[in-house]
């Protein structure tokens, strides 16, 4: 509804004139009477102070005046909001973690669901609708249907996930549906502003874009890092938690860390507006599951908790096959520094496959046996050319590390690999069983320096650099750490290895059991599928995959600053530009003449009322 002549509203001043006339009349109203002696006992009143009590005639005159003014401003009715019958509807509903943020009137997701419910209620009988949820990936929650109860039931069953938002795929999916069905209306309900939706602005105009939420009150753990030197005691581990205040005002929070069910640390944090605080924790009392949490009453709770894993300290148990006396001495020194370690050194000619039995890992220095060790994980250092495990393409001099897979478990906690320079190295080929995890470069080109993978059910790694003594010198320390990190990965028990994942991100699970799953939402928050198995966590938390005794730990966290930064400037709602078909009726119907007709009727009524009052 609108008006053609908004300036006509100035005529409302006539209402004030009418009121003033009445007030003036009240003061001047004279009632002639035959005598006043009967009124002597009635106290005189101060009429100006009396409350204004409009009579029926005044109300009629007021209604008449308002009707005339309403006719003068020429109001009209617009039917644009009413969809034409037979218009399909696609509703894209954001179910990412930020939709769990509390707002006035409920969470953002509840507000969005309420609006979606209203959109579905507007559907004409027989109109079809589709529900698409958008989180890390799109999901068709309900295919095209005209069953109103099924739509409503599906909508009510939806819940927001703990994953980041990728709205663009869901919007593209909806646009595809709209292209397949011309005239389809598109509606998206999200907390992301339109400019962050990920699709082009001209495509966005097809949507009825409803942005919800405004609060920025959130404090989150945006990262949790466990630094555990290889083959060191548990107490040598350190944990770094990154806590960030996303609000525009300062906040106080309490940070707590629990490991293995035992409280480890509790700190009070004072966080200035939009500040980041690094919380460093040292000397854990034990190994096991690490739970870090923030005790703070903010709008978004899902990022107030993070989980990690502190592995139990395991000594070095290694068979070293090398002809280098210096290297044997160096590993002896390393083993002596790590309590409980055991390093057996054999030369190449004395090597026999049965020598590796009972060892947790084996290191072959410049040597690849013709008969591979049957049941042990092995690291091949400086493999010779033409071996059957680690193919090399050429020898390289003066190579330096330029890149590495920091997420790979073998490189966990290693930050200074760019300082690794080796005088002689072999450029490895990428084998079918593994992938390069450290890349180095020389003058000619980059090449894999370390490849790792699984071959015949065992872990295998190939390192193209030569291990030369002294290993513990400062120059060679990065190479030693790389070697030990790789050996740790090779030596760690399969069942005890924890897999840290981020919610919504597909992660290769690797060999091992894929069911049953225990964890948040009775394990429903973690999905495992495919061969090789890939897992995706929809809910943050600790999961266990596999039968009791052979469980594998999966630690799912929401570490996404974009998702945790929930502050929005304002609520936005924009209507589609052209997608919806035109209304069935005339777009604008003026009703000003009806106002004039009403005024005429009111005038007649007022005249009759005045006559009756006069006759009375």
């Amino acid at each position, binding site marked *: 509804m609108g008006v053609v002549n908004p300036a006509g509203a100035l005529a409302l001043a006539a209402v004030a004139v009418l009121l003033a006339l009445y007030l003036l009349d*009240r003061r*001047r*109203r*004279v*009632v*002639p*009477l*035959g*005598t*006043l*002696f*009967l*009124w*002597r*006992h*009635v*106290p*005189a*009143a*101060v*009429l100006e102070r*009396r409350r204004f*009590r409009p*009579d029926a005639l005044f109300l009629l005159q007021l209604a008449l005046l308002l009707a005339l003014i309403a006719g003068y401003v020429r109001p009209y009715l617009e039917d644009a909001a009413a969809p034409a019958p037979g218009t399909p509807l696609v509703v894209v509903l954001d179910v990412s973690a930020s939709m769990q943020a509390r707002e006035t009137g409920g969470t953002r997701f509840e507000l969005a669901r309420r609006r979606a419910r209203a959109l579905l209620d507007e559907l004409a009988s027989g109109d079809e609708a589709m529900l698409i949820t958008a989180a890390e990936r799109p999901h068709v929650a309900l295919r095209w249907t005209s069953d109103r109860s099924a739509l409503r039931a599906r909508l009510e069953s939806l819940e927001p996930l703990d994953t980041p938002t990728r709205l663009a795929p869901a919007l593209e999916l909806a646009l595809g549906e709209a292209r397949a069905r011309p005239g389809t209306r598109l509606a998206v309900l999200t907390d992301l502003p339109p400019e962050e939706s990920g699709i082009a602005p001209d495509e966005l105009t097809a949507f009825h874009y409803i942005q919800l939420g405004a609060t920025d009150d959130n404090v989150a753990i945006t990262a949790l890092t466990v630094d555990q030197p290889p083959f060191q005691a548990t107490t040598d581990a350190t944990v770094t938690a990154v806590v960030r205040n996303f609000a525009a005002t300062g906040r106080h929070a309490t940070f707590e860390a629990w490991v293995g069910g035992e409280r480890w640390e509790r700190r009070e944090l004072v966080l200035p507006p939009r500040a980041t605080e690094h919380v460093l924790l040292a000397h854990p009392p034990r190994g096991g599951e690490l739970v870090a949490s923030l005790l703070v009453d903010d709008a978004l709770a899902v990022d107030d908790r993070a989980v990690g894993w502190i592995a139990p300290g395991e000594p070095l148990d290694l068979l070293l096959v090398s002809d280098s006396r210096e290297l044997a001495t160096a590993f002896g020194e390393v083993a002596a520094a790590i309590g409980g370690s055991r390093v057996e050194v054999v030369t190449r000619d004395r090597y026999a496959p049965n020598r590796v039995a009972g060892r947790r890992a084996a290191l072959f220095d410049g040597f690849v046996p013709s008969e591979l060790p049957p049941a042990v994980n092995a690291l091949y250092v400086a493999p010779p050319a033409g071996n059957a495990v680690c193919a090399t393409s050429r020898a390289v001099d003066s190579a330096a590390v330029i890149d590495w897979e920091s997420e790979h478990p073998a490189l966990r906690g290693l930050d200074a690999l760019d300082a690794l320079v080796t005088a002689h190295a072999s450029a490895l080929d990428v084998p079918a069983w593994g992938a390069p995890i450290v890349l180095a470069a020389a003058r000619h080109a980059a090449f894999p320096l370390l490849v790792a993978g699984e071959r015949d059910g065992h872990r295998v790694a190939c390192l193209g650099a030569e291990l030369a003594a002294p290993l513990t010198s400062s120059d060679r320390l990065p190479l030693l750490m790389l070697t030990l990190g790789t050996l740790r990965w090779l030596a760690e028990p399969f069942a005890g290895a924890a897999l840290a994942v981020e919610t919504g991100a597909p992660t290769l699970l690797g060999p091992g059991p894929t069911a049953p799953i225990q964890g948040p939402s009775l394990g429903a928050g973690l999905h495992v599928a495919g061969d090789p198995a890939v897992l995706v966590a929809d809910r943050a938390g600790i999961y266990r995959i596999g039968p009791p005794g052979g469980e594998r730990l999966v630690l799912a966290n929401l570490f996404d600053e974009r998702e945790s930064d929930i502050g929005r400037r304002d609520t936005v709602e924009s209507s589609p530009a052209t997608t919806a078909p035109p209304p069935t009726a005339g777009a604008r119907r003026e009703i000003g003449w009806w106002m004039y007709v009403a005024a005429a009727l009111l005038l007649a009524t007022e005249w009759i009322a005045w006559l009756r009052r*006069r*006759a*009375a």
Partner: protein
Amino acid sequence: MRLWPSAPRRARETTRARHVAARAAAFATRVLGAGADATPGVLAARLLDPARLARYDGLALRVRRGMGERHGERRVPGRPQPSGIELEAHGAYAPGDDLRHLDWNALGRLDALLVRRFTAEREVVVHLLLDASASLAVPAADDKLGGACELAMALAYVALSTGDALRVAVLRGDGAAERAQADGGAARIFRQRASVARVAEMLAAVRPEGSFGLGTALAAYAARHRTPGLALVISDFLMEPDEVERGVHALRSRGYETHLLHVIGAGELDPARIFTHGVLVDVESGARRPIALTAAALARYAAALAAHCDALGALAARLETGYARLVTDGDVAELMTGPLVRAGLVRRR
């Protein structure tokens, strides 16, 4: 003596009444058609409405005092006179008495000269004293003047229908109007039934204006009209009861039988019909008083009005004066056949 007229007589009276009503209607038409002021014309037509007047047929005024000097149809027992129709008493003969009324039988039996005395038959003049002060015009919605005129017309019709003489006096400020009418001489006393139209014309022409003291006006009237009669004072009596008492005393001292006919407006009984707030102005004195009609104010006014009416009633009872009240939204015919009959002013023939 026949208490009720015979059927042929009733029929004759009815025919006569219809004739009078027809003449009255013709008069009203003439007035309206002559282009006179529409309001008097309408009022006259209303006063002369045949259907309305027919309701008063069969009524007569009851008169106990105020016998006039002229011979008339009213028999006045207790005041025997030498001539007449109905024998009332005997008296000793005195020289000069008419020998035709000497009772020869009594002379033969008693050897005493006795003459017959007859019941006096006199004319009774009904004085319709209509208050035409400005207060009769307000509140306009009440139309007190119209009600007063209608009541006066009903009484006049009854009086003229039963052979009584009628004098209509409109009391206005300083009595000028009444004097002007009196200057018309005997013509101002109506004795013919056909004069009903004239009376209606006179009543319709009344314009309320000015103010005066009712007591003074009535005293002046009594002083000018020494022959007593039946004084019917029609007023709103919006004055102190002492003023009314002074007038009633003056009339009674001249031998008038007096009745006070109180015309009260419906808006005066319930002021909420007229206003909720405003400056009240006395149309006669010009005094002003701002009033907001709250529940408390309404209660106080109602109490004052009730006290005033009670005082008038007590005054009438004390002075042996009739008192009746007409509310403007009431029916005059009901008043005539109900309260005025009970008050002893009207009787059925």
